């Protein structure tokens, strides 16, 4: 299936790209040939890309942003009723300390979880899910 083709498992799959990209993108020995960039957490990537794509000629940009905020199904579990604000603050704190990744990126409104696990008690839910999967 097409899905598998997009997941890279072996170094041989990158051989072609090495020929075409590595040398071309290595400007000189002075630059770091192994430089890469961190895009941040899921929420940061979403926020950034939605913002970039919404700046295009697109009449639905406001809707798109609204959807981003609801990405984890929070609308269904009752936004604000389950300690969401605290959760958001906690998430911000831990993101700030744990992820050095995006110093400049601002924390988006979009929640971290996108899988419908819900913002409220996401951590607990995830643990429960994992436990049940183990069984």
């Amino acid at each position, binding site marked *: *299936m*097409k899905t598998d*083709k*997009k*997941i*890279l498992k072996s*170094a041989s*799959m*990158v051989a*072609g*790209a*090495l020929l*075409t*990209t*590595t*040398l071309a993108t*290595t400007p000189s*020995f002075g630059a*770091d*040939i*192994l*430089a*890469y*960039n*961190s*895009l*941040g*957490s*899921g929420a940061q*990537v*979403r926020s950034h*890309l*939605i913002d*970039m*794509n919404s700046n*295009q000629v*697109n009449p*639905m940009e406001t*809707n*798109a942003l609204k*959807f*981003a905020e*609801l*990405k984890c199904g929070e609308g269904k579990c009752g936004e604000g009723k389950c300690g969401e604000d605290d959760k958001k603050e906690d998430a911000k704190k*831990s993101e700030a300390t*744990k*992820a*050095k*990744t995006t110093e400049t990126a601002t924390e988006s409104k*979009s929640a*971290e*979880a*996108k*899988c*419908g*696990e819900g913002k409220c008690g996401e*951590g607990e839910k995830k643990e429960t*899910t994992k436990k049940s*999967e*183990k069984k």
Partner: protein
Amino acid sequence: MKLRKETIEIQEQLGAYCRTGIEQELPGITPGRIHHYRRLISNVVNDTLRTAFPITVAALGDETWLLLVEDFFSAGVPQTPQVWKLPLEFYQFHASRESGKRLNLPFLDDLLYFEWMEIEIHTMPDRPYPDFVNEGDLLKDTLAFNPEYEIVKLEYPVHTHPVREARELKGEYFSLLYRMPESGNVQFLNLSALNVYIITRLQEEKVPLNEIKNEIARVAGIESGRYLDDALTKFSGDLLERKMILGFKEK
């Protein structure tokens, strides 16, 4: 409980109506009310998919987005009983029908897949962690990688550019997604082909960086010297800080 054949048929007819909107007579349905079933189910599917693909929605606009949802809903016949997997079926449906090509949105597959992968990495079952120690030498010791990651190969840089620009930049791009050990948050890295080569070779060979250094130099077309040592130390040290590398394997 086993359903009667007749009941199954009626359920399937109702399901078909909800997906396609083509009305048919069903026993037990009050006239003029059946459309509410379609409306409600359609809303659930649309909401689930919008929630999963907010970047795609932003990039395509509502009209094109609804076209994709409608096409999937009426012709896709979603199979999964798990709602969170519906976005994967949505992606697979449009990839198999080459919707991107048909709608002149060549980046569509990549964009849907990239968004799906966050869900996949976030929700996937735990993978066994290797035993590791925190102290070690980045070049001389075998590195213990965080096993909960995937490297995604994209044709269009939809992970770094707005689609309007990405569609003009067809090539080979790599994004590494991994799950943070404690929080479970998904992190994204934009890697070069050489970065990917090093990570995959280390995973394949399970040897210290020093042992594949010459190979890396050959592939990169540079001399294996102090410059490469410094670059490898910086690269692996950075991944260690980001918890993509957990530590060092015990000797």
